[in-house]
């Protein structure tokens, strides 16, 4: 069968530690990468790149950032968008003020600034936990948004804090076309996911999960709680910062601090709840869901016979109700999100045609 694992045994510790233990996973991942890097740029239209694929990738990355912190290390955060803003504004300023800095380095620098600010707002996690921590992250959310709106230095003198993307040129190549921006985003997202994949199965990842599952027990085992938590905040901030830079420069082009408000933080939280906390795949599933559902809904409304009570404002409200309802539904029925559903399909396929 296509899904049989029989005979694929690890005969060394090295083989056990491979990124993909199963041949099928390896092949499937290769095909997926081929599709994403070669087939899609060839077949995709500008609409797909601009409206669906790029936001999908960036939101997956933002989901990953929050998932490392909330899903793996168990620290609830409502300030994700703030760290995205730090990433975006730091990248912009690095590009602006250090003219010769290559774009990739500015983006990485933006990530580092976001990581630093995330660690600062993560410091209170030394003493407080659970949903008390949302106070600290909400403080970050409001403070950082205020900072970028208030001080126009960050946006090079723009009164409303609007920043515009620098030319996306790297090593002589111009990435400003939709395909170029897509490929740039995809490369960064793919490499960060690879790093994250290795991170969560490393010692640090296991520390995070130990702290999440029971912090007292983790402390007894000798895991340095504060260091582990702060590393989670730092890593999460780094990834969110890069996601913010990509959101500003490859997706939107221009962005203002208001674009990184609390609603965006909630959106990212919803991605990981729907997709699956403590799962890397879940970020993609959740982001796809969040990006596609509004499009799907407006299409559905368009299909209805013309009726007078459905207007755009109402559509937004209906969307809110559906999102909220889905959140509750997922928390009740499938706390591990869409990723768990996928897991179940795999398990079912493995033993097919038998039931168990």
């Amino acid at each position: 069968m296509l899904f049989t694992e029989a005979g694929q045994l690890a005969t060394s510790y090295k083989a056990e530690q491979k990124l993909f233990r199963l041949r099928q996973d390896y092949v499937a991942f290769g095909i997926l990468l081929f599709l994403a890097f070669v087939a899609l740029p060839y077949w995709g239209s500008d609409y797909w790149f601009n409206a669906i694929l790029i936001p999908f990738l960036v939101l997956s990355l933002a989901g990953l950032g929050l998932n490392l912190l909330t899903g793996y290390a168990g620290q609830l955060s409502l300030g994700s968008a703030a760290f995205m803003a730090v990433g975006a504004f730091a990248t912009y300023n690095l590009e602006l003020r250090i003219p010769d800095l290559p774009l990739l380095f500015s983006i990485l620098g933006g990530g580092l600034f976001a990581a630093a600010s995330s660690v600062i707002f993560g410091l209170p996690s030394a003493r407080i936990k659970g949903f008390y921590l949302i106070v600290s992250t909400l403080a970050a959310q409001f403070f950082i948004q205020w900072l970028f709106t208030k001080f126009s230095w960050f946006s090079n003198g723009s009164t409303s804090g609007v920043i515009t993307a620098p030319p996306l040129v790297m090593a002589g190549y111009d990435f400003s076309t939709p395909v170029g921006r897509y490929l740039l985003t995809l490369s960064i997202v793919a490499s960060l996911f690879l790093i994250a994949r290795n991170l969560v199965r490393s010692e640090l990842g296991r520390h995070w999960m130990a702290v999440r599952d029971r912090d007292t027990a983790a402390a007894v085992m000798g895991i340095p709680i504060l260091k582990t938590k702060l590393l989670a905040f730092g890593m999460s901030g780094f990834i969110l910062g890069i996601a913010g830079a990509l959101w500003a420069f490859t997706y939107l082009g221009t962005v203002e601090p208001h674009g990184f408000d609390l609603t965006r933080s909630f959106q990212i939280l919803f991605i990981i709840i729907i997709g699956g906390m403590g799962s890397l795949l879940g970020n993609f599933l959740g982001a796809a869901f969040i990006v596609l559902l509004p499009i799907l809904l407006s299409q559905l409304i368009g299909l209805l016979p013309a009726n007078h009570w459905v207007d755009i404002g109402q559509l937004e409200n209906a969307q809110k109700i559906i999102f909220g309802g889905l959140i509750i539904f997922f928390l009740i029925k499938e706390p591990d999100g869409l990723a768990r559903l996928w897991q179940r399909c795999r398990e079912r396929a493995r033993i097919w045609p038998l039931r168990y």
Partner: protein
Amino acid sequence: MNFFFEVLVGGLLAGVMYSLVAIGFVLIYKASGVFNFAQGAMVLFAALTFVSLLERGVPFWLCFLMTLAVMIVLALGIERWVLAPLANRSPITLFMATLGLSYVIEGLAQLLWGAQVHGLELGIKDEPFIIGGIFLSQFDLFAAGIALSLVIILSIFFNKTQIGLSLRAVADDTLAALAVGIRLPKVWVIVWSVAGFVGLVAGLLWGARVGVQFSLSLIVLKALPVLIIGGFTSIEGAIVGGLIVGASEKLAEVYLGSVIGGGIENWFPYVLALGFLLIRPAGLFGEQAIERV
């Protein structure tokens, strides 16, 4: 010095308005251990329902009763479809569920009643008058009076009635309460209904102040620092916390804001709350949680 007192009193009175919202949280937190993020949405929903009924020519007292009935139906629905299926889950999960709930209620409120801003006239003149050289807003004093009577009514309800007793029993020890025959679903419905009532009162006062509009649901964000400072489990704490937040944010805006740039009202309460958290995690009046290793 007069100016200082004026800012202080203005802040204290504004803080009362925060307390009104925070009381709704405390009720629900006490009885079911849920940090109810949807309280702001409930305030919006109640105020919108009330105003929409009022605009359709329904008399004031009937509007109040009808909105109350709607809030009770809402509480029944929440118990049935959100709380009961999520019983015994972690507080974080419950919190996120109320986040989803707030989206549902906000969407529902605006789907039913539209998103335009409604004015609300409670028949209280908002003319400032002067006591000892300090300008006082009549409306703020009225709000403070309402808050005070609400606290008195609630404490009578909690301390002197049969239902209040069972509510306190559930808050104290859920398992023991179940063992002596208290019905948990019923208690939840009552608590959420009472929170709906408090939400209605808060919604009316806030609505009369700033107009009934979507931003009402955002006052939940101001109530959070209030709760942290006052403690999640104490109604008196909510009042004191509200006063502290209101006074300090106005003072900070006036004295600190002029130094580092205005508009710091948004984040200052959080920084203050963070300071409190680091020194006194349970808040001023909260119960100290004891953790066993």
